[in-house]
């Protein structure tokens, strides 16, 4: 269990010192917002705003992929992957530490992205800010859990950076659909939609368990 905090602390500390991952993700998110705005500018009527939650979550997922690709980069570059694999600890805790670190970083980026998105697309998140935070947390948790597992795999394949989105996106469909639906219903009605949140909770649960257990077989030297 202390391994979890050790890994989490180490990752966040390194990130805090260099801030390269969060900076890259944030800049990338901003670019995606701008590109999406130019490609699909929202009109005046509500109907054309219907796609906004979808676009927001697409931007979030792109940023997440960018960040997750870097999740094991430090270990890879410093040839510390074996060190991690040989650590006399239950690998599940290493996984949780890594996933939590990615989660924190992604959450920060998603929060910033949401603000910019709201401004660009004229959607006011303020009245539902707290509830949206719940939705965002559930979405990011889903992405970071299975994303960390797959990142550890991808780092061992040819075409490393391309493998991660290739493996991740097909599995992220329930998270994406759940988060988008929850966000749009939330904006529409001001209340957390039960079924969407339920889907996200179940998906997160499944992903966390599978990733926690599966990490054992995925982290190798």
């Amino acid at each position: 269990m202390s391994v979890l905090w050790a890994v989490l602390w180490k990752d966040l500390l390194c990130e805090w010192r260099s801030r390269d991952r969060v900076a890259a993700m944030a800049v990338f998110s901003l670019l995606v917002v701008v590109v999406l705005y130019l490609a699909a500018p929202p009109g005046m009527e509500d109907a054309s705003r219907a796609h906004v939650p979808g676009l927001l979550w697409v931007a979030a997922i792109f940023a997440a992929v960018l960040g997750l690709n870097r999740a094991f980069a430090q270990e890879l570059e410093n040839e510390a992957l074996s060190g991690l694999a040989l650590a006399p600890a239950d690998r599940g805790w290493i996984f949780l530490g890594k996933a939590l670190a990615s989660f924190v970083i992604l959450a920060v980026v998603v929060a910033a992205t949401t603000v910019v998105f709201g401004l660009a697309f004229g959607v006011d998140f303020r009245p539902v800010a707290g509830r949206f935070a719940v939705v965002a947390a559930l979405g990011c948790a889903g992405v970071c859990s299975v994303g960390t597992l797959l990142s550890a795999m991808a780092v061992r394949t040819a075409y490393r950076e391309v493998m991660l989105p290739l493996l991740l996106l097909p599995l992220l469909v329930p998270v994406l659909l759940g988060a988008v639906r929850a966000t749009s219903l939330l904006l529409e009605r001001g209340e957390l939609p039960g079924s969407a949140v339920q889907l996200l909770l179940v998906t997160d649960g499944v992903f966390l368990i599978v990733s926690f257990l599966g990490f054992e077989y995925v982290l190798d030297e």
Partner: protein
Amino acid sequence: MSPADPALHLVATSPSPAMRSALRASGALAAVVAAAWALAVWNAPVDRTQGVIQKILYLHVPCAFAAYLGFAGTALFGALYLWRGEERSDRLAAASAGVGVVFCTLVLLTGPIWGKGTWGRWWSWDLRLTLTLLLYLVYLAYILLRSFTEGSERTARFAAVYGIAGLLVIPLNYFAIDLAAGRAIHPENLERGSLGPGMGLPFALGVAAALAAFVHLWLQRAEVARLRALRARRDAEQSAQEFAPGGASWDT
């Protein structure tokens, strides 16, 4: 200089006796059931609403059955591999995916053909078709993962984990799509309704034929996997030899 008795190689290249009988039996069974199915389809009554094109479903639905079965097999044998560590389990998992993806392709081809013929549209984002498309994407990702991972033992492990994750995502996707789109105008109701008198048999035989075909193709594919593994091992042995001191010279 050659690694082993050449006769041994010859033995290894043919399937084991058990496999050989399994191949023969499954092949014969598939042929017989397929013939029965073809006959049943030919004699099946023509649907009142959709016309003769409804008969595509006697092919489309069994293929879908096999496609989903294939992925269940992939995950199952993957799990077995993680549990027992037997190479054979991994080969069976790979074979399951290989055959399953073929059936899945056929589902995604016959479905739109039927759709175009009945509804005039090649595609609709209804629940079942979308779910199968998503399954297809997971299949493709699984196959790519296998191709691009280095090391056969690592490939087996990674593929097993991904296969299990991919299987668990299927029910999640079902609810997700349902949530996002609600029940669209899928001819699901019509499909069920159109199981009129005389249509049960071709459907049942179709599913049986798909199952039998799946098993036979799966065994064939597993043999291919076994031979490929042998070849990979032989290549590894040979290149190890070439670098051994006093080993073969470059122009052997």
